[in-house]
């Protein structure tokens, strides 16, 4: 089978990898690059556990082909913290107990970051609709929504 060479940028670093034509970006991240923070919950774009940001746009990595990352910029959960410094969303998720099992958490954090990058002052309804593409089966969403709203409030204050 023909493999494709892909040159891309992941969390700010230049990265090259080989992938087969049918492999998704999620396969490449997890199986080729060892970036297992993005999870495969469904493989059909329904659960959002594999959420990444591609050229500034929130996408499901399971719906993007590995070859499509050529020449583009990918942001994953592994790049959310700044070294040892957690992103405010990460800290608030811990403070609010906004995770139980934690498997959906990377996807929620990436999606929530994408929301706050666009809208620093979302209403509860806006948070709920923006995160409607991310499934969580443990929390009932209450503490997740509170963590995102609280982060947004803190980040506005810090500006």
């Amino acid at each position: 089978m023909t493999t494709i060479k892909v040159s891309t940028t992941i969390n700010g670093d230049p990265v090259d990898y080989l992938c087969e034509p049918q492999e998704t970006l999620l396969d490449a991240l997890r199986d080729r690059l060892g970036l297992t923070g993005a999870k495969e919950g469904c493989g059909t774009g329904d659960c959002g556990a594999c959420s990444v940001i591609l050229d500034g746009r929130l996408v499901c990595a399971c719906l993007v082909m590995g070859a499509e990352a050529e020449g583009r910029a990918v942001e994953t959960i592994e790049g959310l913290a700044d070294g040892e410094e957690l992103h405010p969303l990460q800290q608030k998720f811990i403070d609010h107990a906004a995770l139980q099992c934690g498997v959906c958490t990377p996807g929620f954090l990436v999606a929530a970051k994408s929301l706050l990058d666009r809208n620093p002052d979302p209403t509860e309804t806006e948070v709920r609709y923006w995160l409607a593409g991310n499934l969580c089966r443990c929390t009932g969403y209450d503490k997740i929504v509170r963590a995102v709203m609280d982060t947004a409030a803190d980040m506005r204050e810090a500006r």
Partner: protein
Amino acid sequence: MPLDARLDAQDRSFKVVGTRPSRPDGIDKVTGRARFGADMSAPGMLVGKVLRSPHPHARIRSIDASAAEALPGVKAVVTQADFATQDGDLHDTLINVMAGDKALYEGHAVAAVAATTTAIAQKALKLIEVDYEVLPHVTDVDAAMAPDAPLLHDDMVTQGVEPAPSKPSNVAQRHEFGHGDVEAGFAQAEVIVERAFKTEAAHQGYIEPHACLASVGPDGQGELWCCTQGHYMVRNTCAELLGMDISKLRVTASEIGGGFGGKTTVFVEPVALALSRKAGHPVKIVMTRSEVFRATGPTSSSSIWVKVGATKDGRITAGQAELRYQGGAFAGSPVEFGAMSAFACYDLEHINVVGYDVVANRPKQAAYRAPGAPMSAFAIESVISEVADKIGMDPVDFRLKNAAKEGTESAYGPTYGRIGLIETLEAAKAHPNYQAPLGPNQGRGVACGFWFNFGGQTCVNLNINVDGTVALALGTPDIGGSRASMCQMAAEELGIAYDNVRAIVADTSSLGYNDITEGSRTTFSSGLATIEAARDAITRLCERAAIMWGIPADAVVWENGHAKPAGPNAGDFEPLSLAEIAKVSGSTGGPIAGHCEVNAEGAGVSFATHLVDVEVDPETGATEVLRYLVVQDAGKAIHPSYVEGQYQGGAVQGIGWALNEEYIYGEDGRLQNPGFLDYRIPVASDVPMIDTVIVEIPNPGHPYGVRGVGETSIVPPLAAIANAVSHAAGVRMTQVPMSPPRILKAIDEAKANGGPGA
């Protein structure tokens, strides 16, 4: 431990227990570092894939894997012949893991391959030739009980019936519970409500599909990494299915991405081990979401009949129910729990509940959060509310008047000790949500729920490190933050800081046997064992302090994290901290550790009351949940945030089951919605904030009063929402999920019969 010591502890004040510290695995889980089932790899690893039956019921005449085996890159193909024959308890487990002479449901595993890549493994599956003789099938519970239904098992004769039936059927067992004389009770009734209900099968819907990495060496020793609620169960089961000594298999529990009961058995784990043994390489199997829906363990669908009688002043005179649960292709539906818990919330003189455990051509059910209870609670709590409506009594007052309390003989036998049902009802009544005004097409529903809670076999090691920190080894996988609770209990007991305790889930070779994380048992049982292990360590610490001081060990007491001289030596020496004793442990007798091995008893039963307001759109039949309140007795909330999380999560799973989630089978017996697009679980925009009230009526069976909290929260929602929808739509709903078409149909039928207003 003596009972009085436990009771003593309940009046104490707490320093760490009841606070909300950050969980020890928090940073790993927000940074993507935490490793779940599918996140592990090994050198030389192969990909395992499973071939599944496309037929709901078929005889397997032959399997020819020669073409698959010849495909370059394929390293092993296994069928049931590669497993050890099972005649005992694991007979059904083996057949479910890998079919033998019959495929019993669509998705039933019939063979598996290991290959160098996913693409080759998938190609190999297509090359395996299975010769099926398709048989008639049945998926509905009532149809499966019909006299002419296709039989799944020719040798299934209903147990629990005297005299034994002369012919086989799809009814595995009949159960009966109750007391008194229901006919006499109904004779005293002034109002009787009798109804039939149906519930559809729901899936636990954990976001992480089952995944494992198995490696069996040429010496026959195996390693298994997997996401499971019980790695000791996985070890013992896999060892037996593969014909291995238990000591030769080490199982490590990965982080687990949700379970809710669905990861309390084995599916792909023994298959990966068999493939690895045959191929001589590590093998990783990760289920697809479609496989998870078609071939793991959803809950039962059910058909339930209920009859309740009451006097006009609100006293229930009798309750009766017949429960039929299909549990998939094998015996073991949770109908017994459904029957036992059916009237558990009430103090009744006359109760009778009969349950039938039925098999059908569906995947073998697995536990789902309070298995069996939500269905019977749906039916019974619906009728209880309808009786309250008929006699014109407030539904909370009606429940309060009949509520089980200390001394009530439960429907399933035991007499209750101190329980908190009445307190949950009173808290619900006092909550602002109960007074919130309702608009047009809006309705309010209330329902109660009960769960038994379990204890079980538990083993904990607590090691005191030389720097004064503590390593706590647990054997119950952490599915919702339990490591935080255990660290809190250890810190509380030892009198040290929470951050100085690190809890891990040990592998099966490093710690003694632990039962599965199920039955809401972990914070209760592992918590109890952690406290006991800490007390054991304190005894050792006091002994070492005595050596350091040169006084008798029984002249040392432990207070606030320090050993202090007592009795005649009181005040003679400065107290020694845990860290000071630990630092010199090498010269006072060696390492210091505490242990506990226990079969924990005394898990206190748990009750909840849920209150929900909904709005039903009469044009579309769509239901919006406006506000939702969970009130539940936790005994003692160790980490209140995670207790609230259990309440909220269970409620929202219940909302999904009540309004949307169902296994939909076609005439062909195939599951039509094996994906999250068509099996739609609630998303963030579907639900409001979930309000919670934690009631704390201490459980006398736990040193700190803990009751399990994980499961009760899914028991009331189906009924609470059905009661709310029925009030909003003006018509009694008798089937869940109450999807828009079902609600519209009910409204239309009521109109045809003279208008809504039932």
